[in-house]
């Protein structure tokens, strides 16, 4: 082989995927069909809603933080926070200026991070710190070996690389989705979403007439999507992604305003709506 030789096979690293486009399913399958291991099978991912919990302030946040603190030692947790109302404000500012979805995503992510810093500060005495994405993605094992929990930004690190959404310009990968993808990648034991409702209702119980909203205690993700409900306490993208999840085949949405719910959900009790992969 010389420098001008157009053949370059000798420059390949031999592997089962060598010279593949990685797009031919038949060729990729034999190399990648092994079962995926659970990296952190003891991990509990607890997502705290921005609007539903954080924006309510002291009355909602302090009892929840106390409840999480009481569960430390028994459960190793990653606490992910959402951005809440400030994300709505910054979306409004950025949309008015014509900025793209990727910029909106990076701006909202900053707000989710601020809420994470708040929760971490309240738990600092217990050894809990806020971890940036790079630490959550690479050093979570050591952090959770040294302390009972860590707090992170629920938004995934998509930022400028956020997908253009199907309709409009609101970033599709938000807190719920970020926490779900992370929980699945780590093979976590549970993913719990702490909100301000018991779970999924047939319509929004906050605005519906008496008895109109019917509670759904357990439902398949695809089934729930097909119901096309006017509002959901969890991002639809989570439901769409559940079908391809390797481990996270079930999530639970619980009302964090009711004391004891989060503890029960950590134990595996059914206190809210359980959504499972049915596709």
């Amino acid at each position, binding site marked *: 082989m010389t420098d001008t030789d157009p053949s370059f096979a000798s420059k390949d690293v031999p592997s089962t995927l060598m010279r593949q486009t990685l797009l*031919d399913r038949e060729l990729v399958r034999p190399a990648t069909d*092994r079962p995926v291991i659970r990296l952190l099978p003891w991990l509990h991912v607890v997502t705290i809603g921005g609007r539903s919990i954080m924006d309510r302030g002291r009355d909602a946040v302090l009892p929840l933080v106390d409840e999480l603190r009481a569960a430390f030692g028994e459960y190793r947790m990653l606490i992910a926070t959402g951005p809440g109302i400030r994300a709505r404000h910054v979306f409004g500012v950025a949309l008015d200026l014509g900025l793209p979805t990727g910029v909106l995503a990076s701006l909202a992510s900053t707000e989710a991070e601020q809420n994470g810093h708040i929760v971490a500060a309240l738990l600092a005495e217990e050894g809990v710190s806020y971890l940036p994405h790079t630490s959550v993605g690479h050093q979570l094992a050591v952090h959770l070996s040294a302390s009972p929990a860590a707090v992170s930004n629920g938004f995934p690190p998509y930022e400028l690389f956020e997908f253009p959404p199907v309709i409009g310009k609101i970033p599709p990968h938000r807190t719920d989705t970020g926490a779900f993808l992370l929980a699945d990648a780590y093979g976590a034991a549970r993913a719990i979403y702490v909100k301000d409702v018991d779970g999924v209702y047939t319509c929004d119980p906050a605005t519906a007439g008496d008895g109109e909203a019917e509670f759904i205690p357990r439902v398949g993700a695809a089934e729930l999507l097909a119901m096309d409900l006017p509002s959901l306490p969890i991002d639809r993208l989570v439901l769409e992604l559940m079908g391809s999840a390797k481990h996270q085949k079930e999530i639970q949405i619980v009302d964090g305003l009711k004391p004891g719910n989060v503890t029960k959900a950590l134990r595996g009790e059914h206190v809210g709506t359980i959504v499972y992969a049915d596709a």
Partner: protein
Amino acid sequence: MVDQGDAGALHSLLMSRSLTDAELLEASDAAPDYAILPDANVLKIGGQSVIDRGRVAVYPIVEELVKAKGDHQIMIGTGAGTRARHLYALAAELGLPTGALNDIGTAVAGQNAKILGHLLARHGVPVVGGSGFGVIPLYLAECGAVVFPGMPPYDMWQHVPSEGVIPPYRTDAGCWLVAEVYGARSMTFVKDEDGLYTANPKTDPDATLIESITVDELIAMDLPDLVIERPLLQLMRHARHVRTIQVINGLKPELITRALAGEHVGTIISAA
């Protein structure tokens, strides 16, 4: 329905509705589109298809890029290539999840960005990544080009494919997303084939070149193999700025300049 620029109505929807609310999404859709870097052109230089070939393919392309940056602002994204394939195969065999594999793509695309960066260094072209993206406008204004690793930074948050563990959004998607978010003027994929074929031209002698096609037509064809990442086609459907891409043959380096000049010299894939 909210008119474009009706910031007050949009603000009140944002403050009161769920982010999945149909009316809110429609209102966000009506917001204006500001192109951040409308004169920039994104070029993706393939890993396996170009950089892994070494000097014989890379030197002429570097020469062409240096010439082109005098006339056009170019953001050069890099692919991963053969080392990523080795690592993906190894990691998949060991049962590692997609999120862990994402880093592999990031690392190898990063190496290729360093390699191109060193070759372009004497021409003043820097390598940027992560938080360094903030200085891209300055570099483009000062020296006409930057190099960046093409892999999206999804890390442990990468989507899981329906089958297997290979990250579905890799350097093709990453480079296009950069073009889209900056509202770039063009997106060109520099590979080692004349464009998109009906099958893999390296393994199928009956493969024929498709000169132009829409995303929907291409999805409907459901080709067994493709020259660009399949999920990128879905992303392009919802593009607001970069609604066409061109796939060209970098082994004919003069095509880079011609593609930047807007000529049709490979396969043009368009969103509609």
